[in-house]
C-alpha cells in the first residue's frame, strides 16, 4: 500500500511538472510580450519591467527562465490579473472553494443517486424497471447542460419561485471568509442567524447541484448497471448461490463491493467532465467559482489569469483522481500489490 501511494504521488509530481511546462509555454504562445503575459503587469514602467526581467531571469536560457517561473509558482506568486490588477493567487483562493463545494456536492449526489439506481437496473435486468432506468439515463445524458440550467431557473425560480436563481447566498447574511467553503464557514461562524444562513445557502446550492449532477449521475447509472451485470455473471456469485446464500445476501456481501470497485475507477475519469459542466453552470447561476472566473478571463484576454486558473483547476482534478485511486486501492486487494509480469 505504501509503494502504491508513493507511485501515485510520483505520478502527481510529474504530471504537475508537465502542466507547468504547458502553462509556461502558453506565455510564449499568447500574443504580446512574454514577460507581460507571465506576470500580468501591463502598465509597468520600463524600470519596473527591467526589475521583473531580472527576477524572472529573462536574459538567461529557456531552462533558467522556466526554473525561475517554477520558483515563483512555488512561492504562490502567479502574477497579477491583467484586468483587475489583483494577485492571481488571491483571486484563485477566493474563487476556488466555491467550485470545490459545488463540484464535490454534485459528485456525491451523482454517486449516491446514480450508483444505487444502476444496481437496481442490473438486479431487475430485462424487466420494466431496467428499461425505465435506461431510458431516463439516456434522456438525462442527452440534455445539454446550459439549456437545462436555464430551464431550471425558468421553472423553479421564476415560475414556481421555489428556489433562488443565482449566487451562493443571499446578500443579507454576512459570513466571514474562513475556509471559503460556504457551508462550513456558516457552521464555524458565530452569527445569531446561523441556521437561517445555512438554510439559505442550501437553497442556493440545490439547483446548480442538480444541473451539474444530472449528466454524471446518468453515466454512473450505466456504469453501475454494466458492472453489476458483469459481477452477477461471475463464478463466485454462482458458487455463493450453491453455498445456499439468499439473493439479498449475495447482493449485499459479494456483488455490491465488487461492482463498486469497478465503478470507482471510472468516477475519477468522470470528474474532469463534471468540472467542465460545473464551469458552464457557474456562469448560468452566477456562482462565484473559479470556473466562471476562468471563462470571464478568456473573454477578456486575461492571459495571466488563464495560465494560473489552468494550473489550479487541473491540479484540483488531479488531486481528486489520486484520492479516488487510493479509495479504489483500499477497497480492492488486487490493486494494492505490486504487479509483476502479466
Amino acid at each position: 500500500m505504501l509503494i502504491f501511494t508513493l507511485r501515485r504521488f510520483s505520478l502527481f509530481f510529474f504530471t504537475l511538472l508537465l502542466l507547468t511546462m504547458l502553462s509556461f509555454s502558453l506565455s510564449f504562445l499568447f500574443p504580446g510580450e512574454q514577460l507581460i503575459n507571465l506576470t500580468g503587469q501591463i502598465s509597468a514602467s520600463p524600470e519596473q519591467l527591467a526589475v521583473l526581467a531580472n527576477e524572472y531571469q529573462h536574459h538567461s536560457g529557456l531552462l533558467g527562465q522556466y526554473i525561475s517561473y517554477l520558483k515563483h509558482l512555488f512561492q504562490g506568486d502567479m502574477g497579477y490579473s491583467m484586468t483587475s490588477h489583483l494577485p492571481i493567487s488571491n483571486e484563485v483562493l477566493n474563487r476556488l472553494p466555491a467550485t470545490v463545494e459545488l463540484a464535490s456536492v454534485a459528485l456525491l449526489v451523482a454517486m449516491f443517486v446514480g450508483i444505487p439506481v444502476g444496481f437496481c437496473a442490473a438486479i431487475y435486468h430485462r424487466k420494466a424497471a431496467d428499461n425505465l432506468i435506461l431510458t431516463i439515463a439516456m434522456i438525462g445524458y442527452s440534455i445539454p447542460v446550459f439549456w437545462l440550467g436555464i430551464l431550471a431557473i425558468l421553472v423553479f425560480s421564476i415560475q414556481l419561485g421555489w428556489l433562488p436563481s443565482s449566487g451562493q447566498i443571499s446578500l443579507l447574511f454576512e459570513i466571514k471568509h474562513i475556509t471559503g467553503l460556504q457551508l462550513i464557514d456558516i457552521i464555524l461562524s458565530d452569527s445569531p442567524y446561523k441556521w437561517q444562513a445555512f438554510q439559505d445557502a442550501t437553497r442556493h446550492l440545490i439547483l446548480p447541484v442538480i444541473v451539474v449532477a444530472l449528466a454524471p449521475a446518468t453515466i454512473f447509472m450505466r456504469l453501475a448497471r454494466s458492472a453489476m451485470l458483469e459481477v452477477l455473471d461471475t463464478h463466485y456469485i454462482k458458487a455463493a448461490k450453491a453455498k445456499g446464500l439468499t439473493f439479498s445476501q449475495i447482493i449485499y456481501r459479494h456483488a455490491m463491493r465488487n461492482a463498486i470497485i469497478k465503478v470507482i475507477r471510472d468516477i475519477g475519469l468522470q470528474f474532469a467532465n463534471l468540472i467542465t459542466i460545473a464551469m458552464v453552470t457557474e456562469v448560468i447561476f452566477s456562482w462565484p467559482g473559479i470556473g466562471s472566473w476562468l471563462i470571464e478571463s478568456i473573454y477578456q484576454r486575461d492571459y495571466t489569469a488563464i495560465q494560473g486558473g489552468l494550473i489550479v483547476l487541473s491540479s484540483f482534478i488531479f488531486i481528486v483522481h489520486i484520492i479516488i485511486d487510493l479509495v479504489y486501492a483500499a477497497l480492492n486487494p488486487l490493486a494494492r500489490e505490486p504487479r509483476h509480469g502479466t
Partner: protein
Amino acid sequence: MNLIDIRNLSIKLQTSTKPIFAVDRVNLTMKEGEVRGLVGESGSGKSLLAQAIVGVLDEKWQVDADRFHWRGNDLMRLSAEERKAIISKDVAMIFQEPMACLDPTTTIGEQLEEAVDVEQLTGYFWQKRQQRKLAAINLLHKVGIKQHEVCVKSFPHQLTDALCQRVMIAMALARRPMLLIADEPTAAMESTNQGQIFRLLASLNQLKNMSILLISHDLENVTHWTNTITVMYSGQFVEAGTTEQIFNQPYHPYTRALVDSSPKASRMIPNKSRLMTLPGSIPTLQHLPIGCRLGPRCPRAQQKCVHAPKIKNFHSHQVSCHFPLKDNYS
C-alpha cells in the same frame, strides 16, 4: 434407499426456432456413501446436469424431469423455494477454477464464516461471532490446512489453486452435506495437488459417509477413486455401472472407444502407432443428430439408430444402445 434418483432429466435452451436439448433425458441414481463418477467429453452436459441438481443454472435454461427424488422426497412437487432450501442444506458443490469461485475482495475467513450454518451455533448473539470464527478454523483443519491464521486473513489471489480448492471444500463441508458434487475439481492443477484433493475427497467419503458425485473428462483418473460410473455423450445418457463393469467390460461402443483411447502401461503399444479414436468430433448444440447422438460416429451404427434407444439393464449395468457389445465378452 437411494440418496438421489433422477429419471429423464432434460435441460433445454429455448431459441427463436426450436428448443435445443443440451441434456436429453438423463438418468442418475446414487446411494448413500457412494462415490459416483460422471464422465464425458467437454460439452457433454455433465456440468449442466450438476448445476441443474444444485439449482444454480441461469434463467435461460429450462429444466424438467420425470422424477427427481431426494432421499425419498419428490422434489418436483415442491415449490422452487422449498426445493432450494432442501438442496442447499444437503447438497454442496465445488467447481472448476476454484480461484474464480471465491470472491476476490473478501478474505477467506469472512467467506468461510458466512458459509457456517447458523443452526449449528449455540449461545447468545454476542458469542456467535467468536463461535463462527472457531467453526471456520475447524473447517480449515478438516481439509488439512494447518496454518489457519495465515489462511483466514488472506485473499483468494494470495493462495494457490490447490489451497483455494481446499477452501472451497471446507465451505462445502460447512453445512455437513450428504452429497458433494465436485465439478472437475482438479482441472488445470498439478498432478501432486490433484492427488491430494482426490485423497481428501476419498477420506471425507470414508470418514463421514458423504456421497460424492465426481465429474470429470478423464475416465482413467476417475476409476481410481469411484465405486460407480455414469458416462454421458453430447447430453445423452450412455452407460452406467460399477467402475469394474465400465472399465473392463463396457457395453456401449462409446465407452469402449473411451477406454481404448487412453494408453495403458500394461498394454504393449508399438512405437508411433495411432491410438484408437472415433472419427469426427462431438456435435455442436446447433447441429445435434436425431436419435442416438453418437450415430454418425459410431462404428456399430445401423438404420435403427435414428431412433433414441431404450435403456437396457444387465445386472444393474445400464446401457443405452440398440446394439450393445454384450456378446463380445463371454
